[in-house]
């Protein structure tokens, strides 16, 4: 099975000028946790997801504490998340997105893609053509969906 055979049917794509608030609505509407950021020529610019929003909102000292094995989140006041979210609402996707992303080729095999996802601890991987065009999105779910009908046929 090739990667091109197990893509998400309607992947979520966003422009880098979109605001955080719009991004959250889009993500919630589509029931997808990760989106590809593309330019007007459908070139892949990066990826953005709920994880990136959380990372942006969490203060740096949380990561420092985690490195020492401690969750300093226990000492932050209750309203912190709401305040930070409110303050960042109009920030653009460009400020959140991950630019250097791992991607795969549509002609790669599904097992290669799965190995990449496991190795890199990714829930989704963008699929990019040789010319840099965004082809689609591969997720753990889309791979399983692609494999299931064939199993049913066999049984």
């Amino acid at each position, binding site marked *: 099975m090739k990667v091109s055979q197990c893509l998400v049917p309607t992947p979520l794509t966003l422009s880098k000028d979109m605001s955080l608030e719009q991004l959250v609505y889009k993500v919630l509407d589509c029931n997808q946790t990760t989106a590809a950021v593309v330019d007007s020529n459908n070139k892949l610019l990066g990826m953005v997801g709920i994880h990136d929003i959380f990372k942006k909102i969490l*203060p*740096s*000292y949380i*990561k*420092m*504490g985690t490195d*020492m*094995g*401690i*969750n*300093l989140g*226990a*000492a*932050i*006041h209750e309203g912190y998340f709401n305040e930070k979210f409110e303050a960042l609402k109009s920030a653009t996707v460009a400020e959140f997105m991950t630019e250097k992303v791992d991607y795969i080729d549509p002609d790669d095999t599904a097992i290669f893609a799965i190995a990449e996802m496991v190795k890199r601890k990714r829930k989704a991987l963008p699929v990019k053509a040789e010319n840099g065009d965004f082809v689609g999105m591969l997720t753990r779910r889309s791979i399983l969906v692609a494999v299931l009908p064939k199993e049913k046929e066999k049984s």
Partner: protein
Amino acid sequence: MEHAVEHVTGAVSQYYWVAAAIFIAAYAAIISEKIDKTKVALVGGALMVILPILTQEEAFYSPHLGIDYNVIYLLISMMVMITIMSYSGLFEWVAIKSAQLVKGSPAKIFLLFITITAVSSALLDNVTTVLLLAPVTLLLADELEISPIPFLLAEALASNIGGTATLIGDPPNIMIASKAQFTFMDFIVHLAPVVVIIFIVFISIIYFVFRKQLVVSPEKQERLMKINAKKLIKDKVLAWKSSLVLGTVIIGFSLHGVLHLEPATLAMVGAAILLLISKKDPHHVLEKVEWGTIFFFAGLFMLVGGVVKVGLITDLSLGLIELTGPTKDDMFLTSMVLLWFSGIASAIIDNIPYVATMIPLVQDMASTVFTDGKIAGADLPVEVLHNTVLSPVWWALALGACLGGNGSPIGASANVIVMGMAKQAGKPISFLKFMAYGVPTMTVSLAIAMVYLWLRYY
């Protein structure tokens, strides 16, 4: 001594310039920071063995020319104990409880955190102290909605002052103690008093400078009072176990002269016991050891061993003698020159390679002055190393090298870490901003140290 004699008689003199070239090139590379200092020290050390300026026996087994395992194992063992202790959340709990104890007042937190940093740096090491306290400092500043910069700057400076007080507080002291055979209590008796004075002056001035930035509304202070500090304690039993072991090891340090056990041995026993009773996976704990620093030391010892063997350090010590004119009865000028030179040098370059070079230099100078070169510097008996004329020279070296670290952001590892954390938090401290507080702190500290050495020993 036999190697120094070999140098004089020409048996190894053909290597003199080769060793000098390797040493200078390595120093230049370390100062430039273009290449990781661990790589530089290891390559330099390896070249000393391969060429062969040092024999393998000397590099690995000679107490005078090779790797100093007292230093290596003391560092590793302390890192292991502190890593295990850090898993408990005890440091964070103490920090939050301290902030609550002073009702969330930023000015009082400022004073308290600086004091905690200085004391912890003396008992643990200054790098670990700032690694543990800086994240909590950033958190409290964020909650109080004030700039964390005064806190971070003051903590970095205080860590270098506090670390000066004890044998284990700063790597230069560990190295001096190992080679000059000083005990933990020697450092407490000779350095702690002046460090207390320097700290009191420092905390008074730094508070005065930043006092206007340390005011917030009562509502913000109230926020800190609502923090449930208990949630930060991840493992209460581990907190007790590690405090007990570390406390016992520190008491052991103060008695190591009586126990006839090196600090490295005591720390290693403590680390082994704590690993055993903490039930932590040793692989995970050992991953946290700063192996880069450990191998930096290993390479550095071989690098310095090479130039000691060929006689370069002896020649430099003769220069120091010519410059400062030390005699069997008086080394006042030598102490003063060494104090200020070490301070300034340590602000510019890493104080670890500096002290590694200066120790054999002082030993060789003492050899010339006290024994006319009949006993090699590294073989000098304790009576010579600790005599009332030479002792202040060692203390001048320790004070200069440790306190000088405050002179620039790259002068001490703690400064580098604090600068990095401030940048990560989106509150960068510029090189010049650090210098604006660091240089006066270093100058005042060295001036106090100078007066102390003068009044106490001369």
